[in-house]
């Protein structure tokens, strides 16, 4: 018993000493898409794709963002780079040149500047590369656009980037069609990393890849993170991949953040019923029969017309009266563990148990 208390205080001291300003801090981010009807295109409602989401990402860490399709995880990632303008909210980014800036307020020139340091890689390696551009053009594009390099210098930098992601620099003049899915994902990564960014939004970067290639790309991402001191927001729906790569994991449901915690803590001791159901649904590569899993009934709520109270209540196994009328607060229940559930304190939920 005393042992446990000791280790606990030790970890606390550690986290406190590491408590620097986070690299990225999102406050009440909202992205609503208007629904328009009729001849005059009157606004009749909003699809609340991202609705009041707050989180932070520390320098050098990987934050995994999970949730079912349509929960707003990709939209969140895009809003951070202002690839789509958010409806409201703050995105504080610690830019090495400009200092702490609110991305939502930046105008064109400053935005170009800040995007040197925050970049993105995409899910589909076939759609995200222009087939008419050679690798030199693709990887060199951000360097040219940002006025970082040109001519011979550009070529050298591109060659270096290609080498960094495990492609041969001789391939510089080739076009994307000559490369496989995994190699294309490497090209996309080289393009993102070309201006030496601090922060990378990875939007389902391995979902379209085969398992053996997926492993190569995941390892590459980890290697580059260590070498270049990168920080990742890793958006994905595959829980085992997210668990493998993330230091902390955030779970979204219908545009809202429902739970955030350190990876092991979240998987072993989830505090939100939705997280519990999500864990239970993961198909695990082990044929040993296991306990009956928790199956969710019903469908994901419609973000244009969400239920009252807690959005998850129609599917929740632990629903109480209060859940139907009042929206729960997203609060820190134990240090660094945030949950949005009325019953978070009283419920004891099942997490992943080690099979070994």
């Amino acid at each position, binding site marked *: 018993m005393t042992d446990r208390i000791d280790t606990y205080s030790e970890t606390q001291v550690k986290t406190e000493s590491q408590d620097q300003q986070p690299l990225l801090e999102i406050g009440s981010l909202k992205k609503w898409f208007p629904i328009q009807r009729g001849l005059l295109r009157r606004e009749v409602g909003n699809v609340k794709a991202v609705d009041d989401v707050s989180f932070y990402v520390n320098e050098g860490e990987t934050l995994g963002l999970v949730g*079912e*399709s349509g929960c707003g995880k990709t939209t969140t990632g895009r809003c951070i780079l202002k690839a789509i303008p958010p409806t409201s909210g703050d995105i504080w980014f610690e830019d090495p040149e400009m200092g702490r800036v609110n991305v939502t307020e930046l105008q064109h020139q400053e935005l170009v500047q800040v995007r040197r340091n925050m970049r993105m890689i995409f899910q589909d390696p076939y759609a995200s590369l222009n087939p008419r551009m050679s690798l030199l053009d693709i990887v060199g594009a951000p360097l040219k656009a940002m006025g970082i390099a040109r001519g011979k210098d550009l070529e050298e930098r591109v060659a270096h980037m290609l080498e960094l992601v495990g492609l041969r620099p001789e391939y510089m003049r080739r076009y994307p069609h000559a490369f*496989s899915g*995994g*190699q294309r994902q490497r090209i996309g990564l080289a393009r993102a990393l070309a201006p030496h960014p601090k922060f990378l939004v990875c939007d389902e970067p391995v979902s379209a890849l*085969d*398992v*053996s*290639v*997926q*492993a*190569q790309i*995941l*390892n590459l991402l*980890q290697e580059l993170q260590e070498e270049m001191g990168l920080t990742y927001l890793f958006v994905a*729906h595959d*829980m*085992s*991949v997210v*668990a*493998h*790569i993330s230091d902390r994991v955030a779970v979204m449901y219908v545009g809202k953040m429902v739970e955030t915690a350190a*990876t*092991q803590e979240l*998987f*072993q001791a989830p505090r939100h019923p939705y997280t519990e*159901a*999500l864990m*239970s*649904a*993961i*198909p*695990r*590569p*082990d*044929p040993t029969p296991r306990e009956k*899993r928790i*199956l*969710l009934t019903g*469908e*994901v709520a419609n973000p244009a017309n969400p239920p009252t109270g807690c959005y998850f209540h129609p599917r929740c196994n632990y629903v109480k009266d209060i859940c139907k009328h009042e929206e729960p607060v997203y609060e820190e229940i134990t240090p660094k563990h945030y949950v949005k559930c009325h019953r978070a304190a009283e419920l004891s939920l099942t997490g*992943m148990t*080690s*099979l*070994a």
Partner: protein
Amino acid sequence: MSENVLAEIKNLRTYFHLAEGVVRAVDGVDLVIKSGRTLGVVGESGCGKSITALSLMQLVPPPGRIEEGEITYYRNVRATPSSNVADAINISKLKPNSRQMRSIRGNQISMVFQEPMAAMLPVRTVGSQIIEAITLHQNVSQEEARTRAIDMLARVRLPNPDRIIDNYPFQLSGGMRQRAVIAMALSCNPNLLIADEPTTALDVTTEARILDLMRDLQQEYDMAIMFITHNLGVIAEMADEVAVMYMGKVVEQTDVQSIFFDAKHPYTQALLKSIPQLDDVMSRTGERKRLQTIKGMVPDPYTVLPGCPFHPRCPEYIPDTCNRVVPEVIEVEPGHIVRCHLYASDIPVAQASEDMTL
């Protein structure tokens, strides 16, 4: 549960003759599908798992062609288990649009595809598509077919089946659509259901429900399932037997326990090691681990490699053998077969002549 053989694939070769060369999509596959059991087929994209299934349905798209091999289908196994030889049909010899093939396809052997939106016609209601399948194969009236279609929708646990039957596919969510597609596939009570990545496009919570449903329906109907996927987690949950494919060949086949706990082929072993394991994450302390990878990548489909197709990537590669001699099928234990020189009683050495050395 019966152990009768329902379909048997022997030395199947399905090739695509393209201007760029010949793609040997399926290159000598042997598989046995037993009635009431689930055969899982795993492999990376391009390994030929889908083309094997399409060959079984005589649905290989041109310019693909079944070049060689036999696909024997025992039509009446379930009805008369004792005399199954009498009603053997060699599917590989049937014309794709022949009367006999059409009476089998969608009726006794049916298929569920990966993309539920693509599997249904968007301009017709869910009901009319299921009713069509029923009236095509069974001698029933329109009204009777409709009743049966509603019953099928209820069986796949869709809420309000009498309303959903008149919905269009776009009105259903992905999970509901996949249920409707399964209802359509099961509407004629097939002997064999081929499921080609049926849950890959779905979310985990929806996937869990669809897999549960398929298991229940299998018991209810006592049908065989050929389950094609690249997800080893799904295989572990669904399959009784597993076949691992690589470059058009089955490299290992055995029961599901042995695949996960006693894999023999280096490819199977490497595949299992390259997936992120939640157990490792749970037990990790401090430093994050790297995944083990398979070096290199799957060669382009036009390549014909001498010897074992996996040899350039294999960690156990035996020089002068693996790159020259095609490995034979070896039965390492009863019911556990593997195509690898490591398990041969005496390792075949190629008659190496000086000029052949690389």
